[in-house]
Every structure is written in C-alpha cells, then in structure tokens.
C-alpha cells in the first residue's frame, strides 16, 4: 500500500507524521529540534517541491510512505488523488492523509518565516516548538492511518482468499 501524508509545504507536519509512521522518531515523547532537523525534508523544502510526492521510506508492513506539499488545496487534494486512484482501480492500494488539521499556529508562523520569508534562524525554533506541541496529535493521526492501512490490507487478503 502507498500512504501519502500531505500538508501545505510538505515540510513540517507531513514529514513529522511520516517520520512517526516509519519509526524515525520515538512516539512516546516529542522530538528535540536536533531530531526534527535530522529528518529528511524537515524544513528543507523549496518552492520547486510543491506538488512533488517525495518518498520517505517503507514501514514494517511494506507500506510505502510519501510526503507531499499541496499549498492551500486542503482536503480537496485528498479527493482528487483518491478519485484518480478509483479511476485506475487502485483505491484499495492508497491512503491519502491530510496532516493540515493537526497544525497549530506556531507551526504555521514558524514554517512561513523559515520557508517563505527565508529566515530559518528565526522560523525554525518556532516551528520546532509548534511541532513538539502538535506531536501527540500527529501520533494520533498516524495511529489512525496505520489502523486504516491494516484494515485495508486485511480486507484485500480476505478478498483474495
């Protein structure tokens, strides 16, 4: 199964969610700024990365995990991608997850300052603090996603049997 976490820039909440999913960061405590900065793509994207689906890794159930920045397209983007998957008969192989609703004001302000304004020294500490505050909400999103993936996989196996 392919799991795509998406948010505004594909740089903070979606990357953190994907990292939690892949076990790149521990999920029982919020990560430090150094841990966040060591994640691939975290606060490192540019304008050219908008719309690029970037591979983050494979989880223990062989699900491929991706991240995507889709600007302000909100849940519409999930519908678009799922609509295409349905059209291609692959809807049961994909989960498209919007991480934006777990984003707090600090993440938005810090992310904007770091990525859009281009002052990472100012924005990074703010976005890191915001990410730490939103961390358990992102863990919750990932747990729900993992359950959905497991459910889909069981359903698929059941169909085959």
């Amino acid at each position, binding site marked *: 199964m392919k799991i795509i976490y998406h948010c505004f820039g594909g740089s903070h909440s979606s990357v953190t969610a994907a990292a939690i999913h892949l076990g790149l960061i521990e999920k029982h405590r919020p990560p430090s700024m150094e841990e966040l900065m060591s994640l691939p793509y975290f606060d490192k994207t540019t304008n050219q990365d908008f719309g690029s689906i970037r591979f983050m890794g494979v989880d223990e159930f062989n699900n491929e995990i991706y991240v995507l920045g889709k600007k302000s397209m909100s849940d519409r983007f999930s519908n678009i991608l799922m609509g295409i998957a349905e059209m*291609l008969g692959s809807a049961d192989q994909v989960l498209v997850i919007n991480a934006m609703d777990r984003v707090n004001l600090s993440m938005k302000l810090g992310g904007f300052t770091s990525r859009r304004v281009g002052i990472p020294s100012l924005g990074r500490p703010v976005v890191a603090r915001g990410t730490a505050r939103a961390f358990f909400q992102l863990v919750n999103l990932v747990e729900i996603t993992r359950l959905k993936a497991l459910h889909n996989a069981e359903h698929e196996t059941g169909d085959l049997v």
Partner: protein
Amino acid sequence: MKVIFIGTTGVHHALVAANLLVGQGDDGRYSSLRGFADTGIESSGKPFLVSDDGRGNQVYSLGVGKDLGLAERAMGQFINILGFESSDIMVKKVPIKGDKLMLLLIALANIGWLKTISNFLAERLIKWQLRDIKQCVQQVKI
C-alpha cells in the same frame, strides 16, 4: 487510454475540452453540456467521466483549483507511483486567460438566483478563449 483534462474548475473550460476531444459541443452551446457548471460535480473533487467509448478510452474533466502546475505535477507522480505509465493515462492541463475567474463563477453558481448569470459569463469566457482550449485538445491523441 484515459485522458483527464484539468482546469481551475472541472465543469467549465476543462469540461468543454473533454467534450471537444470526443466530438461533442461543436455547436457552441456549451452551457447545455452534461455537467456544465454543476456545483455537485465540482465539489466532489473527483474526475468527471465525459465519455467512454467502450474500448478502454475514457475522457474525464477535473477541477483542481488555481495552481494547475502543482496539480499536474502531483497527479503525474501519483500515477507513476501507482504503477501506471503515460500510455495508460494522460493528464492535460487547460490553462486559459481568466481561468481563475471560473472559481468565482462556480462559487456564484451555488447561489440559486446567480446561477444563470454565472453560467452565461462562464460560457462567454469559454467562447472568448476557445482557440486556447482547442489547442490543448489538439495536443491530445487517443
């Protein structure tokens, strides 16, 4: 082969392009096309099937909002990730002058008494930009 025409909205110029590809809508009465300015189709966010020739060729229209380039790139990569190739499915964007106005017009079409005006303006805009729409259609072969 599947072809998806994407526009700021999927029920105006992208829908006209999809219809022109399959030889419909030549009479210029675009507002009478199936799905034209349909707010239900637009808000679903899913590709709208315009034509299916029964031999595996299907033509769709889809509204993706104001950033066509972003949507085209993401959709192209998504299709590759799912294991399909350009011979299976093609995403063609339909950029026209004033296409962001279509977003406003579809919002207006949600308000009952403004729907007629909205449809009229959308049709006028499409006729004004028909050459660009036809150029997009000509670049697609199924």
